[in-house]
């Protein structure tokens, strides 16, 4: 706590210092009479930055809608939830909320009217956000244009439409409390942990979600299928499946903030996170998150793929190799090394060899563009092959890239491809 306080002091001190310097050097500024970046502006600016780190906009904005006005459908295994209007409209938004109301919602997952929030709102992560940061986010949200738009009622199946059930969920899966810095770790590590576990709410996707929609702390950051999106969120721990242990801090930070790196590229739901949220982080914060993520200890990693599981029919492998040579070599190279960061490597890329082959199959079927970000505004893209390759051919080429060049993945079946072919890309 003390470290954090010192950190906050340093941060505030730095901001005041920067403001002073700016006032002095600003052309035409009259010392004493000019408007410096006043305290309110500083708080709102910081709130905007933190709201981006929390990616509020992604869920609280309907496609093509006004930012923060809500209405976006959130499909869950229990039915559709609709994100609420968090613009400061008095009638339909949070215009009448106080900072205390807002803090209670972030900290405890309880709305202004006392109702329990569904955990699609990541209050299990946001509970770690400090009071000061919550107040800044509140100040920012109060400063955006109010939009009059009634919240759309959720469409949850019985019994999940009974909010009383949430008491049970909370007992099982919710631990309230602000982030407590680890005094044995550096300020940078603690800042990273604060962002990853708090506003970043990474565990919402990167920890397996069980049938009750809960995440187990024992499995934190070990990876899991994202319900209703059918992408696999890989492990963030150092396990060999897809962990970050042997990555450089720079590559992890780049992946988060830039969307591409020398090790891998973000697509699908993570592209959205980078596009809406992580690209706006400072280099310092992106690096802090990377330092923390790299340090996550390996957990019980899945057993290595056995040689029996890796057995591949020579004819399948040959079909896969031929397709690879024809369609993939241009961008990913003969040795699967790619041309990073433009085209990602496939050799030694854990996203290719993960036990769950959903991501490589989807990439071959649907292609993808990394997000266009401030540091990579013109990303290179991969085309879809679903109309060119049959299920057998996709299975063969994905099998090939999972076992070639020393990759230790298992073959995939045409049936697995067929399942994913039926889904709409998203």
């Amino acid at each position, binding site marked *: 706590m003390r470290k954090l306080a010192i950190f906050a002091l340093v941060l505030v001190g730095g901001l005041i210092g920067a403001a002073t310097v700016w006032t002095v050097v600003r052309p035409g500024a009259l010392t004493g009479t000019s408007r410096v970046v006043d305290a309110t502006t500083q708080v709102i600016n910081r709130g905007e930055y933190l709201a981006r780190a929390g990616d509020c906009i992604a869920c609280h904005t309907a496609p093509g809608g006004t930012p923060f006005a809500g209405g976006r459908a959130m499909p869950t295994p229990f039915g559709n939830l609709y994100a609420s209007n968090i613009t400061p409209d008095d009638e339909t938004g949070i215009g009448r909320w106080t900072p205390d109301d807002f803090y209670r919602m972030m900290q405890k997952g309880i709305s202004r009217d006392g109702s329990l929030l569904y955990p699609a709102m990541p209050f299990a992560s946001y509970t770690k956000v400090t009071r000061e940061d919550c107040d800044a986010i509140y100040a920012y949200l109060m400063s955006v244009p109010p939009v009059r738009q009634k919240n759309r009622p959720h469409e949850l199946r019985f019994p999940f439409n009974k909010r009383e059930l949430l008491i049970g969920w909370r007992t099982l899966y919710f631990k309230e409390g602000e982030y407590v810095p680890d005094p044995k770790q550096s300020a940078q590590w603690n800042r990273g942990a604060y962002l990853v576990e708090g506003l970043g709410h990474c565990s919402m996707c990167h920890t397996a979600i069980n049938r009750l929609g809960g995440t187990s702390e024992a499995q934190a950051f070990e990876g899991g299928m994202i319900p209703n999106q059918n992408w696999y969120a890989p492990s963030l721990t150092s396990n060999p499946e897809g962990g970050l242990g042997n990555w450089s801090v720079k590559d992890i930070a780049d992946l988060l903030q830039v969307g591409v790196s020398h090790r891998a590229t973000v697509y699908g739901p993570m592209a*959205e996170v980078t596009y809406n949220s992580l690209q706006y982080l400072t280099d310092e914060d992106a690096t802090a998150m990377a330092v923390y993520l790299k340090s996550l200890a390996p957990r019980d990693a899945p057993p290595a793929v056995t040689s029996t599981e890796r057995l591949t029919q020579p004819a399948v492998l040959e079909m896969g190799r031929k397709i690879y040579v024809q369609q993939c070599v*241009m961008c990913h190279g003969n040795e699967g090394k790619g041309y990073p960061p433009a085209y990602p490597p496939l050799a030694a890329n854990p996203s290719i060899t993960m036990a769950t082959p959903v991501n490589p199959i989807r990439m071959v079927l649907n292609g993808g*563009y990394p997000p*266009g970000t401030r540091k990579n505004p*013109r990303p290179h893209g991969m085309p879809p092959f679903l109309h060119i390759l049959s299920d057998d051919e996709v299975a063969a080429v994905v099998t090939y890239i999972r076992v070639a060049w020393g990759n230790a993945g298992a073959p995939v079946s045409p049936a697995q491809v067929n399942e994913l072919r039926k889904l709409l890309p998203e």
Partner: protein
Amino acid sequence: MARAAKNRLSHFACALGAVVAGAWLVAAPRALAQDAAIPAFKTLDSMEARVQGCTTCHGQSGQGTGNDYFPRIAGKPAGYLYNQLVAFRDGKRRYAPMNYLVAYLPDAYLREIAEHYAKQRPPFVLHESVPADAASLDRGQALARTGDPKIGIPACVSCHGANLTGMEPGIPGLVGLRPNYVAAQLVRWRVGERAAADPDCMKRIAARLTDADIAAFAAWLARQKQPADAAPESSNLVRMPLACGSQR
């Protein structure tokens, strides 16, 4: 005399070329389709390399591929292509594979992609034309060249250009598009699944077209040859018969 001979010779060469190409098309349609669709580029740091994500459907230069749906995008006005990319990104034009691909691309980059394809001038992809009787083809030609004043349909050429190569900045070229694609778009417009910026002139027209009209125009269009100048017309040559939001 010399010119006429040269013309005859070039007609003969064209016909021969068409026969040879046609034979190849029959023999290996998949190979032809695949050539344009196989990723290839010269320099990594180029637009050509960046738009490889488009190639398996739209071809290396935006000429289209063997698939009978994906449209030719080469040479369409940049303003039109940009409007479509933005509409796909924001979910206002719905086609899931496109919505997914461009979901997280910023305006400036979409503009650059649009300008890249607007500059391309690849030859037409040879494709099968749909069967149609003479009356239907006459109707298609009439709609294209003179419209149908009785039901308030202006000629296609009055906005899409004398050679149907489009008009700057926002009206697409039609010549070279596949009949399935053209028919599907007109139907989507008619039922309200596709829309352009208000005032949506195309909506007014599509609402007046019958299924038979749409089929007639698509079949006639598929029989048109590539014009010598594939560039869209400039925007200030003609007064448009209907107000059109895409031209503002």
